[in-house]
């Protein structure tokens, strides 16, 4: 994932939208699609897909959530 994320994700059972979101480091989109934020934080820890702690923090904190910390907007990705 650090050296060649596109290659690392090739062949994985993920939708094209999920693939694009991962490669773009769009953790907000992934969160809205149901990705576990605790697991996504590893992307920032290992600085993959353009993420670092600061960028990850900003993108996640920008998400609209309900009182339980769950996304208010749920992605309609058909996958």
């Amino acid at each position, binding site marked *: 994932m650090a050296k060649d994320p596109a290659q690392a994700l090739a062949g994985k059972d993920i939708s094209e939208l999920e693939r694009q979101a991962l490669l773009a480091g769009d953790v907000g989109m992934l*969160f809205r699609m149901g990705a*576990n*934020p*605790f*697991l*996504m*934080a590893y992307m*920032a820890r290992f600085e993959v897909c353009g993420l670092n*702690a*600061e960028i*990850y*923090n900003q993108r*996640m*904190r*920008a*998400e609209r*959530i309900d*009182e*339980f*910390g*769950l996304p208010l907007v749920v992605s309609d990705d058909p996958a």
Partner: protein
Amino acid sequence: MAQIVAGFGVPHTPIFPFLVKRDGPNCETAKLFAAQADRLAAVRPDVIVMFDTDHLNTFFLDSLPIFAIGVDKSFAGPNDEPREVPLYNVRSAPDLAVHIRRLGIESGFDIALSEHFSVDHSIIVPLHFLTPNMHVPVIPIFISGHVPPLPSAQRCYELGRTVGRAIASWNPASRVAVMGSGSFSLEVGGPRMMPGRDYGVPDPDWAARVVSCLSDQKIEALIAQSTQGQLLRAGNVGGELLNWIAMLGAIGGRAPEYIAPQLQNGHAYGVWRW
């Protein structure tokens, strides 16, 4: 027969070993853990039973039991590599673990079995501070406290009571300390992080209420208030309180010796001895 000789509630913040190494033995965290370590040593445990929530390092989303017990002669950890924590090999007590599981199942708890497992910081960081020589065998009992739907607080308390009965029915005379690992209000990597941090404390008032309930032995009230909704409001790892509740079930209606809060971190350090 075996007897439970103490209960401990512990935090497991993965960066604490690094911070304590940096800041030295007189920093707050070092002193709080040292106080617990002294009391653990004083009760001379033969075995530690630790209720814990794995952070998707031992189990994963594709195979996630509500309750599980580790059964092996030993286990390694941490498998998630927190800073300044060496890789330990921790002895366990498989015969007692099998006994606990069997009695648990006979009592109506479907406790999964995990062999040949490794554990993450949530078990190792407390042991790093409390038993750095890893000289006391440890039996981990895993409670699924992060990924909804969560088991109810009442269910976890009853699990603890059942584990307590199992320990009391174990024939070899053993001194057993029971631990509950985790925080009361904490968000890790989620949208309720503090600016510039990788964590947040979304509900500090809840953390304070938990401390109050523990200090005043209002366990029924604590259980009643620890709904899934409240645990989720407290943060994406707020369900770790279930490990403390299970520990309380195991040790019975005991008054704490002390509860030392670190509310800025959403957790506390608790000791029960009698």
